[in-house]
């Protein structure tokens, strides 16, 4: 088990390196991107200033040296200095990490707590009323633009009903978290409902379920002893994949609700061409995603012996 965990962690290293390389190439090597991005709206910058900045940023060095020093500084936890605020990117991200984690975990909890039981109930009576309604809700939830849904929720619950604050982090209290988390949680909730339903339906036709019935088990026990654990394997996969997608969606939702997280930092930095901040935010998002996926894979191995011994 331990060797599996270690192996799994080591496997992510090449991916991390590749991501760093991609980010570096995208923002530092693609011709002109960094210089043109330093001026607003692509207007020409004073060549002298440009020259001085190039020197200052070490842009005259060969690519591999720049990549080397980039990696070296990343290794020490130095993500560079923001072009705009002149603040270390590391500390900018640190400040915003907690709100983003809060948002994502709240959204995922919302999705799991509603989606999984919904899918389960739907699967027990396929074609029934609950099944039909929940699947219509699920496919609708998947088809909505998050920011549109957010706008509608904001309009209804904050502006019309006045139950909840419309945007912002406020004091960090739960009231501020509800609307963004619900907005963000709708599509993973819908997907989890569908995956759970499909997984349960599939497992209910498996041979080992027939064996369980031949043992004289009631349907409740069949589900409890044999279906749940197997369904969990498939549900976990969805949760893992959705956490990644959630990081992407968080960008939009944070921006909409002016949530002070990494997502809105990323969007603001992109709009303001703050390359170090962009690079840093993306890297942190990826690291987060890879960490989550490693945890999910380990959980997998706990649940499914076939993976543990593979």
């Amino acid at each position, binding site marked *: 088990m331990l060797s599996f965990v270690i192996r799994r962690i080591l496997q992510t290293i*090449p*991916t991390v390196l*590749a*991501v760093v390389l*991609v*980010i570096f190439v*995208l*923002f530092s090597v*693609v011709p002109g991107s960094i210089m043109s*991005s330093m001026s607003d709206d692509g207007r020409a910058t004073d060549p002298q200033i440009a020259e001085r900045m190039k020197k200052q940023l070490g842009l005259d060095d060969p690519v591999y040296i720049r990549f080397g020093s980039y990696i070296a500084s990343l290794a020490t936890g130095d993500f560079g200095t923001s072009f705009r605020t002149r603040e270390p990117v590391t500390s900018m991200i640190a400040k915003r990490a907690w709100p983003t984690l809060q948002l994502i975990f709240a959204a995922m909890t919302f999705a799991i707590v509603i989606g999984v039981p919904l899918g389960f109930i739907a699967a027990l009576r396929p*074609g029934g009323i609950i099944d*039909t309604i929940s*699947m*219509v809700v699920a*496919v*609708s939830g*998947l*088809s*909505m*633009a*998050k*920011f*549109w849904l957010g*706008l*509608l929720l*904001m*309009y209804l619950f904050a*502006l019309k009903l006045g139950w909840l604050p419309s945007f912002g982090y406020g004091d960090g209290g739960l009231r501020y978290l509800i609307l963004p988390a619900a907005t963000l949680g709708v599509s993973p909730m819908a*997907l989890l409902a569908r*995956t759970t339903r*499909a*997984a349960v*339906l*599939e497992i209910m036709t498996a041979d080992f379920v027939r064996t369980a019935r031949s043992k004289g088990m009631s349907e409740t026990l069949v589900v409890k002893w044999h279906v749940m654990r197997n369904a969990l394997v*498939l549900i976990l996969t*969805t949760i893992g*994949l*959705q956490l*990644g*997608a*959630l*990081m*992407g*969606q968080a*960008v*939009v939702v944070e*921006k*909409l609700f002016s949530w002070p997280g990494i997502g809105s930092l*990323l*969007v603001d930095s*992109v*709009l303001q*061409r703050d390359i170090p901040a*962009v690079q840093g935010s*993306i890297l942190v*998002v*990826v690291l987060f*995603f*890879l960490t989550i*996926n490693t945890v999910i894979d380990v959980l997998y191995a706990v649940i499914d012996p076939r993976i543990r011994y593979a």
Partner: protein
Amino acid sequence: MKFGTSLIIGGALFALAIFVGLLAPWLAHTDPVMDANLMNAEEPPSWTWWFGTDAQGRDIYSRVVHGARISLTVGIVSQLVNSVIGVTLGLTAGYWGGWWDDFVNGLTNLMLAIPSLIFALAIMAVLGSGLTSLLIALGLTNWSFTCRIARASTLSLKNQGYVQAARVLGYGDLRIMITQLLPNMLGPIIVIGTLGMGSAVLAEAALSFLGLGIRPPYPSWGSMLSEAREQITTAPWLSIFPGLAIFLTVLGLNLLGDGLRDILDPQSRSQRA
């Protein structure tokens, strides 16, 4: 949902979207960009202004109709690019195996590690906004799922008797891939492609909403919502109609995908991401 219902509803919604997109110049009442008239600013929906007007007095109905063109172009073209990339990589990786398979696997893992919307955002940041950048950004970032399915299908198909038989009969690799493997994995690929189109429409809207996709004044559904956000209290209709257009289009594609899955790919109903 009953078999076939989702296929019919989805197909109808998608056909409607295509129809609106193709006939936009004839269906629109006014020019979506030029016909601004501050005299008509922020009119609520009425018989004259079906979906109301915005702060510059432009007809929302006409803008939504024109927005269909952009959304569908982005959805269809970028997903085609994704499908071609994904199938090519997945098919060759599964068939040849070895270092190429390792490489493609690594690439897929890399693509999965960066949330596709964020990857697209980064590319947009480098390329600048506009339709071409959008097509590139969305076309290059959402192929990993197709690739995985293509690879998995190839791995399971390649040991089927008829593929082995083709090798024994002296078929070349390329011929085997095109005549034996591809036709037999098309079902799931089409399903994923249909669902992927929906994701692309949503991604375009999100990027435009963030100010990185289609820039105002051009009427993309996402950019319209971006503008509408400020007036949510005074003119909620500005938010409702473009969002509804996105919803119905994507709903159509999702239902169509589900319906096609029942027909083309009955085994893999449980997998979707």
